[in-house]
């Protein structure tokens, strides 16, 4: 009880919970949006989502690991000086991870995913679960089981008499997640491919009838999802840790967010991700880290029950 009162009466705690929660929420919203996209368009629940995130992190980690010593060995010139400014290279590693994962996702679609698009949910669950296991072990074999992280060299900002801390890299992730989601919305609304994706998600057969190449749309959607995961992973590597076996929490969290928000509703996904993040952090302050997840999952149960109750009322009305 003390800790709950303390939480609400300490402004620095409230502020820190809000900031940390938004950062976590922003990261999860990226992964969750990719999941919702694939789920809505292809009817596949991608259990390997978290592993794509971690893979993206490793790609960024190695991209930096290779390029930094290379640039440092060069004669210092204008470009290398700009690139070696703290924060610039890590920032660049995000689009790199994203594009490499885009290619990876496209290939994965062409090899495995296209076989399961029209199958039932169970098959797709099994297949993506298999991909998840294989990917974890492959990452373990190629990158090792050591805990890694991406060193950005960026400072930390302090507010409220130095009681609230905000590492600049976390601020980055918040801004970047917002830019990315705006970009995705515009892309889906305005571009031809976005239009095709939306058409296929509404009715794949009808879309095919009017001349949309559904196979191409599926491949692109899946690759777009892995690309988003790649960007998310690069940020995860800078803020948290990378380890071949820590992908699952990201899958679970994004799954939860999508259930919260419903399919095909981007603003709802982002809002529920941010809300969930803030809620989770607050729960940590109030009830301790031990009960943090328990609290979040009980909230999920509550929301599901509430939704069901509302739906059942609607059914009565229809009757």
């Amino acid at each position, binding site marked *: 009880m003390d800790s709950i009162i303390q939480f609400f009466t300490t402004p620095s*705690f409230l502020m820190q919970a809000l900031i940390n929660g938004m950062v976590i929420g922003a990261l999860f919203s990226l992964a969750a949006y990719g999941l919702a996209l694939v789920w809505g368009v292809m009817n596949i629940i991608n259990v390997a989502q978290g592993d794509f995130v971690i893979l993206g992190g490793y790609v960024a980690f190695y991209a930096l690991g290779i390029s930094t010593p290379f640039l440092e060995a060069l004669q210092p010139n204008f470009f290398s000086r700009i690139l070696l400014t703290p924060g610039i290279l890590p920032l660049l590693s995000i689009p790199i991870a994203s594009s490499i994962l885009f290619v990876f996702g496209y290939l994965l679609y062409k090899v495995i995913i296209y076989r399961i698009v029209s199958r039932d949910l169970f098959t797709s669950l099994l297949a993506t679960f298999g991909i998840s296991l294989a990917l974890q072990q492959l990452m373990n074999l190629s990158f090792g089981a050591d*805990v890694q992280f991406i060193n950005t060299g960026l400072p930390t900002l302090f507010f409220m008499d130095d009681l609230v801390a905000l590492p600049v890299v976390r601020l980055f992730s918040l801004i970047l997640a917002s830019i990315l989601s705006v970009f995705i919305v515009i892309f889906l609304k305005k571009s031809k491919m976005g239009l095709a994706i939306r058409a296929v998600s509404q009715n794949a057969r009808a879309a095919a009838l009017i001349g949309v190449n559904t196979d191409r749309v599926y491949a692109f959607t899946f690759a777009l999802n892995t690309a988003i995961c790649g960007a998310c992973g690069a940020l995860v590597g800078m803020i948290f840790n990378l380890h071949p076996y820590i992908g699952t929490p990201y899958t679970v969290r994004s799954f939860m967010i999508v259930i919260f928000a419903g399919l095909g509703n981007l603003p709802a996904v982002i809002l529920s991700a941010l809300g969930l993040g803030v809620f989770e952090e607050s729960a940590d302050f109030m009830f301790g880290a031990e009960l943090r997840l328990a609290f979040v999952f009980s909230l999920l149960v509550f929301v599901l029950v509430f939704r069901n109750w509302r739906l059942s009322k609607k059914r009565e009305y229809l009757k």
Partner: protein
Amino acid sequence: MNKKISKLILGFSALTLLLVGSATAKVDGDIVTLGAAVSLTGKYSTNGKHTKNGYDLAVKRINENGGFKVKGKTYKIAVKYYDDESTPARAAQLAERLIKQDGIQFMLGPYSSGLTKAMAPVTENYKIPMIEANGASRSLFTKGYKYLFAILTSADQYLAGAVDLLAEKAKEEGRSLKTLKVAVAVENDPFSLDVRLGAVEKVNKYKMKLVLDEKLPKSLDDMAAILTKVRALKPDLLIVSGHAKGAATAARQIDQFRVYVPMVAMTHCDSAQIEQKYPVGAENILCAAQWHKKLTYSDDDNLFGDGNDYVDIFTREYGYSPPYQSAESSTAIQVYVDAFKRAGSFNPQKVRNAIAKTKLQSFYGNVKFNQYGQNIAKPMVLLQVINSEYNVVAPTKWASTPLIYPRPK
């Protein structure tokens, strides 16, 4: 028809398996085979490799020196390995398989408390001795196991020494122990909970104040909320335990959120390599270790020499400096050989009794088991990261460098 044939094939293969199984035995000619399930894949694969390398190095060294003598006859050692995939269920299965199918009568431990816990009931059931070097949870020694022996100090001792150290420093400064505040943040797993238990017992003994007692979920690698609380509570000592991931997260975020605590102690610093990866945050952090090369123990059997010799030999063989996980694994093999010699037999019961009476010193430390199979002859040491290097600072008897306290701001 088809069903009949498949049944026949099944029956036949089961029969062959049985026959093959009983044909291989633990002592074949002049080779004694030990059995081990270690994590070559899965989340413990790094430490699994350290464990295997430790075993392999001792085996290689013994065999190169011409083996060992039991009742005038010279024997050599081999180890049969399986990959337990870092999962307890698989480890238990493999223990069963090693004993029943492969006829192994002497077992070595896997990596981690969880997996050792899964294997111990099996070896106990078949009355096969198991010397383990990487399962530190206290609960391994409260079940009354008769065939389980642990080379390493149990988990509750890991950071209890840090609380002692704080008490010692406070007395020097003339501060009352009751005013000291301790914060504890551990992962919610058997090992770390034991680490917490040992530390909290000491805190209660000295009547210090436990201002924060957090258990982190396994899936979490963010300590931001906890560190914010630590900043507000201003403890004198912060204790963190959560394997390599916990050490990495704490060392980085303590620096990132600029949280100042005069004394910070954690486990698994060396497997997380915090001194190299997070040099700023890691500076002056205290790390619990089972062993350090600077300790002045040396082998009774002259297999490696002292700690520095071991590091040299290991580095030459595997190209990296051995963590304590490898050192303790090598000593497990030394204890087996010593027990074989004293038992004068390869009867599991006799070997078990010989192990129970072990009294030896290796480069790793003294080994002597109590009735629960715990090694009671070796203390834990506390290392401090000073200029990105580990130095022994406690217990005072082994200290090579004076402790830096409080950590400079």
